[in-house]
């Protein structure tokens, strides 16, 4: 009976549910969470599905516990996930930092809603993008994937698990309430057709194993609890043995490695889609649901004869710095519509060539961009303003 419980086929499926199915397809067998709109459907689906796959579902007492719990499960060698929205992420951030420091593979889903604070529980925004990058204190590299449809919510959840396993860190999926609550066709391939990456376990003998030793790729091999390695791991700055070491030398080896293990692999991690980039005067850069809602404006601009290209970021963090820099040498400028008051546009500004214009089309969330606003911004950039 349990074997039958894997889904594949075509479904008319809500985004949040597609996310849960993506996690299960990727091999997630532990979910710890706390109810919050608009992410609760993920937990509900997991509560229903995980027991049938002999996995563990636990509704914790809060988001702090949920995040700590999935780290614990990760150390038992089980792929784990939590799903929440902005206020929950705010509570999770300390333990997200612990996950970064301990290098625990797991996935954190943020179905973004309007903020700050309780904000707009049932409506959407993209205003947690910087929080995903810088939310927890200290320096660390991080990965954030942004889906724009239920299908992609499924696909990128699988990818998020793969990245988390490969690079050993909590990976964010930055969905939003519109994608989470939208129902569309979702194609779930048979599990054997999915590319699934699992963390690299050490093959060293117990006496030779150093839990935080690393090779060229800067990623330590994993050993799970109960394997007999009996090693220490801590949120303190630690040496290759995992022992606390409060020296500058140790900090200077560990923290840059946490940043560089992501930075050095940006070509693998950075997922983008480009259309009509060649010969474009203006490039619209968007991500998540905004990448769909601005399409009518792009069509209108094209009708007016403006050469508009379009770059969609499926991976927002690490930010494709080099790509933006190169593009900026060829175009008059960029238009960045996002459902916040300027977050990723700042990154575009940082990376773009000095002469190129970067125009933010802000939106506080709760509705979608007016076509005219986006069109107007495209026109302005096209005319060099």
């Amino acid at each position, binding site marked *: 009976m349990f074997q039958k419980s894997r889904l594949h086929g*075509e479904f008319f499926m809500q985004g949040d549910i597609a996310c849960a199915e993506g996690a299960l397809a990727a091999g997630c067998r532990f979910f710890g969470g706390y109810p919050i709109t608009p992410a609760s459907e993920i937990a509900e689906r997991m509560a229903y599905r995980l027991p049938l796959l002999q996995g563990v579902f636990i509704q914790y007492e809060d988001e702090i516990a949920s995040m700590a719990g999935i780290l614990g499960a990760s150390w038992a060698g089980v792929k784990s996930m939590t799903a929440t929205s902005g206020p929950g992420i705010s509570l999770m951030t300390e333990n997200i930092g612990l996950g970064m420091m301990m290098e625990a593979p797991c996935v954190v889903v943020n179905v973004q809603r309007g903020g700050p604070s309780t904000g707009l529980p049932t409506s959407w925004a993209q205003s947690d993008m910087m929080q995903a990058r810088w939310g927890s204190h200290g320096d660390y590299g991080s990965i954030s994937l942004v889906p724009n449809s239920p299908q992609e919510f499924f696909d990128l959840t699988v990818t998020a698990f793969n990245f988390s396993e490969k690079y050993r860190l909590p990976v964010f999926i930055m969905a939003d309430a519109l994608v989470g*609550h939208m129902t569309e066709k979702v194609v779930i391939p048979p599990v054997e057709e999915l590319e699934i990456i699992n963390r690299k376990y050490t093959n060293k003998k117990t006496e030779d194993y150093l839990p935080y030793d690393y090779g060229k790729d800067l990623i330590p091999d994993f050993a799970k609890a109960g394997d007999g390695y009996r090693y220490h791991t801590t949120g303190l700055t630690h040496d290759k043995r995992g022992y606390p070491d409060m020296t500058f030398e140790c900090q200077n080896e560990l923290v840059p490695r946490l940043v560089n293990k992501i930075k050095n692999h940006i070509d693998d991690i950075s997922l983008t889609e480009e259309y009509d980039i060649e010969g474009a005067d203006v490039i619209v850069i968007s991500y998540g649901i905004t990448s769909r809602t601005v399409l009518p404006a792009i069509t209108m601009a094209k009708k007016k004869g403006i050469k508009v290209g379009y770059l969609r970021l499926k991976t927002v963090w690490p930010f494709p710095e080099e790509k933006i820099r190169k593009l900026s040498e060829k175009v008059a400028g960029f238009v960045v519509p996002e459902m916040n008051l300027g977050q990723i546009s700042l990154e575009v500004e940082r990376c773009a060539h000095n002469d190129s214009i970067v125009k933010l089309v802000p939106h506080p969330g709760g509705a979608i961009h007016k076509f005219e606003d986006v069109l107007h911004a495209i026109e302005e950039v096209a005319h060099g303003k």
Partner: protein
Amino acid sequence: MSELRVKISGFGGQGIILSAFILGKAASIYDQQHSSMTQAYGPEARGGACSSQVVISSDNVEYPLVDTADVLIAMSQEGYDTFLPILKKGGILLYDIDLVEKLQCHKDIIAKGIPATRLAEELGKKIVANIVMLGFAAKQAKIVSPKAMQEAIADSVPRKFTELNMRAFQAGYDYNKEQE
């Protein structure tokens, strides 16, 4: 690329969300088109009002919201009043004639009424009014093929009510105003 934008509105409890789900599923799974369904956003979510929307397209749905509708299904006066302005010229309005009584000027649109709730009551269960309406919509607005709609209905309702729902669909599909 052809695209059809459908708004469905009514009260909570009428199965407004379910009918949008069935419609979307009929289009994307059984008619092999693409569809995107979103629900109850905006000020209309207040009180007992409820609405949902489906975009049906021959290609991937780019823009998932319904700002202007090709088809408006109104199962309440409030839904009718709120969403009639977004129905575009030449668009089709389908409404329950017992629940939407105060009609505005229907210039430039095609308006078709059906006593969906009353027909459902005659079938034995008021709850299937939404399915009656889907049958009516399949015929009058041709939003999806009747076969796809039937399959999607069978797929989405509890099995012991399949037959009732099929009769409800048929009642809506066969309804002809001139008969009244």
